[in-house]
């Protein structure tokens, strides 16, 4: 069946705001930074935050979002039972 492409019709009447474009760009950059920072390793939130120079709170939001979107997965906890480690999902 042929795809409809109604999004092109919507573009004629609806302007995508600059905020949406900026946030999309920012998210893609942060995602790339987090995935690069983790690489082959298993890291916890403070480690990732340190590596990408971002607040722990923001790092938590992005890492949890990437877990939700199946890009990352939680593995074990550290010896102190404080933080989970996260790795790239195979």
């Amino acid at each position, binding site marked *: *069946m042929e*795809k*409809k*492409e*109604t*999004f*092109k*019709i*919507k*573009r004629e009447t*609806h302007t*995508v*705001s600059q905020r*949406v*474009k900026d*946030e*999309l760009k920012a*998210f*893609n950059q942060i995602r790339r930074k987090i995935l690069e920072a983790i690489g082959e390793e298993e890291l*916890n*939130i*403070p480690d990732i*935050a340190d590596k990408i120079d971002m607040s*722990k*709170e923001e790092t*938590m*939001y*992005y*890492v*949890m*979002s990437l*877990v*939700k*979107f199946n890009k990352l997965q*939680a593995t074990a*906890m550290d010896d102190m*039972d*404080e*933080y*989970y480690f996260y790795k790239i999902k195979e």
Partner: protein
Amino acid sequence: MPNIEKKSFDALVVGGGIAGVESAINIANNGLKVLLVEKDLTIGGKMIMLSKVFPTLDCSACITTPKISEVDRHPNVTIMTNTEVLHIDKQDKHYFKAQIKEKARYVDVSNCTGCQLCEDACPVVVPDQYQYGMVGRKAAYIPFNIASPRVASIDIENCSLCGACEKACPTQCIDFTQEDKEYEIVVKSVVIATGFNLFDPLKIPRYSYGSAKNVITSMEMERHLAPTRPYNHVLRPGDGKMPDNIAYVLCTGSRDMTVGNPICSQICCMYSIKQAQLLMGALPMADVTIYYINIRSFGKGFEEFYEQAKGMGINFVKGKIGQIDELENGDLKVRYEDINQGKLVESKHDLVVLSVGAMANEDPKTMFKADTWKQDEFAFAQQKDLFYTPSLSSIDGVFLAGTTSGPMDIPDTILSSGAASMEAIRYIKQAKVEI
């Protein structure tokens, strides 16, 4: 977009929380036609978002979903989600005209299978309102797994119109040509079940909600403890640490003249005790302290539930919180007045939960002609007679179900909805007019 072939109904139920769902089922079971209008993308209200329920600790989703599927499959009920009631005008006895607006979802709900391929394809990520911003969601999204209807929606304000969702959808149900649609419907009676709002803790700056990352609300904790949780475990939003010393601040925004709400919210003592018990299960090594003014455990089985919590080792401190400050490591310094000892004390916790109160949802005020919809002094719906006819509103033929008329727990909401629907049925059956 549902096709409302029938534009007249016996009853209009506004609000699809547990009160609205229960009322709709009761009325429909009596052979009457019901239109259930919900402003959100899903029915279920707050109950569908809860973890477990006091005092039985039944799984909330497990007891909500059978009701939801019953109302969903009921031949006498038409459900419209993502729909607003613009106004309801009483024309005559037993005869109301209502103007409603169904907002475009940009998805043909009858064809969406809930496969989530649009969600996977969508590149846009924004804070997920169903997880109170603790995690992101896509612009093409299904609210959560047990949403009803479990279909996608496009958040047009955040959509980049890249077309990825439309290309990915196997049933071609994404449709950006959809527009908002208004309907005029005629009904014989109305049940208002618009529920309550949560107190906004930003109104008490000394509790540091919003600035201290590990101060959260009780509704956020419900999400942490629910099966559809934002994280893989109960973790601090500030840094992902597993908390081991958690504090509850009861009466946040209730019984407090400084925020203009002197009344007791009735549910927060018990839901906090419930959450504390669940936390002891999820985090066996954690200490949980509940700071309270009085514990209101007045319902069936509530006092025993409170005693059970004490037996589990939950620490109850009769104390009034003065100030909560964030420390460098994200922990919280809590300054309070120990009421029993009559002195000021400081304690440290690594997560603080504010047990926010139940406030009135004033939406119905805008639906009816000025001065016909009456509110009580706390802006909840005014009950015609609190003792004899608690489900009658100030307008003849308009009935009150659930927390629209004041804070209450789920069992009382079910009772109130039973009363409201019976009054509505009686009223409809008296109608001589055919509409």
